């Protein structure tokens, strides 16, 4: 049984309040042959500038250091791509650094950016992430992604990351899903939901009107996961501008954008699942040890934590994040979330890791309908809607940009501009996409607080980005 010390479990602290000032993103697609990566990054930065009524040059004038998230050098075939982008954005001679933590690269880039402002090193920083996954065919892409598994012990086994999640799906389905067909349908429902929300998002790569049956009849990749259970392989860029209070207010003063408080925390676990001795479940502020005392009795085979059914890294990033930002119960305290739905199974697992439901009961959150913008069972607003962007299954997974895209999406809700941005004909036309006749504004009305989870490997790195309207904080600054 592994135990952690008080030093290791200390609640992190920023030395001063940190703000998300603005953000932007490019189009996302499986391939964007007409644009170089630098053009996509310019698109994202220009959008961020436009949101606060600054020119790109004016915005750049505030930036003091830069954080670039780009995971897969071998995909884009450009080592030190951050130097190329930094040059093309005309940000030399500012200090910059590349960040890579697999699928969590976008979140980790925000983590570094926020800490830099919190420490006082910089008053304003750029966090920019991108991925170029269209330089190889899909099967070679799967090979390149599988290189993020342990190259001696796992990658040679099929060279397919879906497989490493499928074993988790199988175990989860049998232990917590009790092998019920209804559980498999709940997984499929997640894919239907995310592809449907992607239809309302001009930036999204995979808008689809599909049914549970379509998901269940889609080709098997790694049983029990099928093609429509899986995230996308994408190209695109996203950025965020992070600043201290004084700089943030000055930058946004000529716009309707209200800078948002931001906290970012991180957790980790082994690259190979269940490759450490077991431990007790770390408890979130609203949980007690009692709720897990009879877990094994209720779900035989669930005694090993962390095993194949939960992500310790995700649990730990919110363990730190909730305490840092004053969140007690996420379902009560938050208004909108974006989770890292790399596969339908990881969406359910993450509801448990982040305390929306106790371990073993993640499916009930989907089945309750409260993860929807409008609860299909009640017709009322969902209690805590998730992945209204379409997520990784419907919108994109341009790895280095993903965590930043999620943050952009949450910020749109908190700024109250989701409908203005996503309904804007300008974007639909520019991306050569047809706005659906039944386009629906997915703005979460009155949203004040949100969260995004950015996740790597089978949980090797996970970050939690929390955004709040500064007039609706849960904890006074100390």
């Amino acid at each position, binding site marked *: 049984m592994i135990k952690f010390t008080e030093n290791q479990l200390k609640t992190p602290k920023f030395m001063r309040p940190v703000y998300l000032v603005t953000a932007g993103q490019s189009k996302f697609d499986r391939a964007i*042959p*007409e644009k170089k990566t630098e053009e996509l990054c310019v698109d994202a930065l220009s959008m961020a500038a436009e949101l606060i009524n600054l020119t790109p040059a004016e915005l750049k004038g505030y930036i003091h250091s830069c954080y670039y998230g780009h995971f897969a050098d071998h995909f884009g*075939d450009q080592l030190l791509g951050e130097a190329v982008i930094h040059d093309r954005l005309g940000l030399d001679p500012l200090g910059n650094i590349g960040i890579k933590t697999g699928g969590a690269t976008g979140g980790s880039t925000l983590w570094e950016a926020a800490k830099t402002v919190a420490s006082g090193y910089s008053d304003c920083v750029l966090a920019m992430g991108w991925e170029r996954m269209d*330089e190889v*065919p899909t*099967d*070679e*892409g*799967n*090979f*390149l*992604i*599988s290189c993020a598994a342990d*190259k*001696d*012990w*796992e990658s*040679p*086994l*099929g*060279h*397919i990351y*879906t*497989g*490493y999640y*499928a*074993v*988790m*799906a*199988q*175990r989860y389905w*049998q232990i917590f899903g009790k092998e019920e067909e209804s559980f498999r349908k709940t997984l499929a429902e997640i894919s239907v939901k995310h592809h449907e929300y992607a239809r309302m998002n001009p930036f999204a790569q995979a808008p689809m009107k599909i049914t549970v049956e379509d998901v269940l009849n889609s*080709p*098997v*990749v*790694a*049983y*029990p*996961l099928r093609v429509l259970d899986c995230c996308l392989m994408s190209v695109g860029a996203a950025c965020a501008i992070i600043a201290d209070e004084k700089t943030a207010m000055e930058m946004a003063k000529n716009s309707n954008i209200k800078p948002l408080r931001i906290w970012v925390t991180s957790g980790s676990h082994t690259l*190979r*699942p*269940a*490759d*450490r*001795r*077991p431990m007790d479940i770390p408890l979130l502020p609203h949980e007690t040890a009692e709720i897990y005392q009879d877990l094994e009795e209720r779900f035989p*085979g669930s005694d090993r934590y962390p*095993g*194949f059914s939960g992500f310790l890294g995700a649990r730990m990033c919110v363990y730190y994040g909730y305490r840092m930002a004053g969140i007690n119960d996420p379902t009560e305290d938050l208004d909108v979330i974006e989770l890292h739905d790399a596969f339908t199974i990881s969406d359910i697992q993450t509801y448990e890791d982040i305390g929306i439901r106790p371990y073993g009961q993640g499916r009930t959150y989907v089945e309750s309908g409260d993860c929807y913008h409008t609860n299909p069972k009640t017709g009322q607003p969902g209690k805590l809607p998730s992945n209204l962007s379409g997520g990784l299954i419907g919108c994109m997974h341009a790895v280095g940009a993903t965590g930043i895209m999620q943050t952009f999406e949450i910020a749109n809700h908190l700024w109250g501009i989701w409908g203005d941005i996503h309904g804007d004909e300008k974007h639909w036309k520019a991306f050569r996409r047809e706005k659906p006749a039944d386009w629906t504004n997915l703005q979460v009305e009155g949203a004040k607080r949100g969260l995004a989870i950015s996740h790597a490997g089978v949980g090797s790195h996970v970050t939690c980005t929390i955004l709040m309207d500064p007039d609706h904080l849960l904890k006074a600054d100390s």
Partner: protein
Amino acid sequence: MSLYGQAKVKNWRYKLKGNFHFTHSPSPIRNVDDSNHLLGITKPRHMIYLHSYGGEAPFFEALSQGKLLGTRCDNPDCEYQGTLYQPFRIHCPDCLARCTTVDMTDLAKTKGYIHTFMICERAGAFNTLDKPIKFVNIEFEGVSTILMSYLSVGDPKIGKRVIPIFKKFDPTYTITDLSWVVEGTTEEQLPHGFCF
């Protein structure tokens, strides 16, 4: 074709023989929807890497000899002394002392069970295993961690006991030299090159 790249180590340095890369010319990528304008190029690349197993080399050598090696922390000052690891860990993840190598072949033959599994229909490029691949994650009584591998004979089921098999003939010296079969499998049923 010239000799495909091969390597050995002498005096602690790599000695290379043959070609480690093969050059091919790029070709244009044109946009047929827009007057066949040039959009980019293909970039062929065929190259061979050198990879050291370092302290894990005994594990991969042993597979070709029909043995499964694990490791154990024997540091008397470690809070977790006696913990047995499979996958083979060079160092104890707690105290970082170098672990003792342990032959756990007999343990694996009698105390290995499927913890979870999946059946893979689509593999990535460069996959060498026959599809569908039956991935199995195996737990062993007395071992603290779980090993990912694949099942060559039988149907996977959580909790089912499995027996290791080893590619002793034409080994690849990779993790694919280790596979598993369900209890009751005969020698004749094993894939080419594998033995109990």
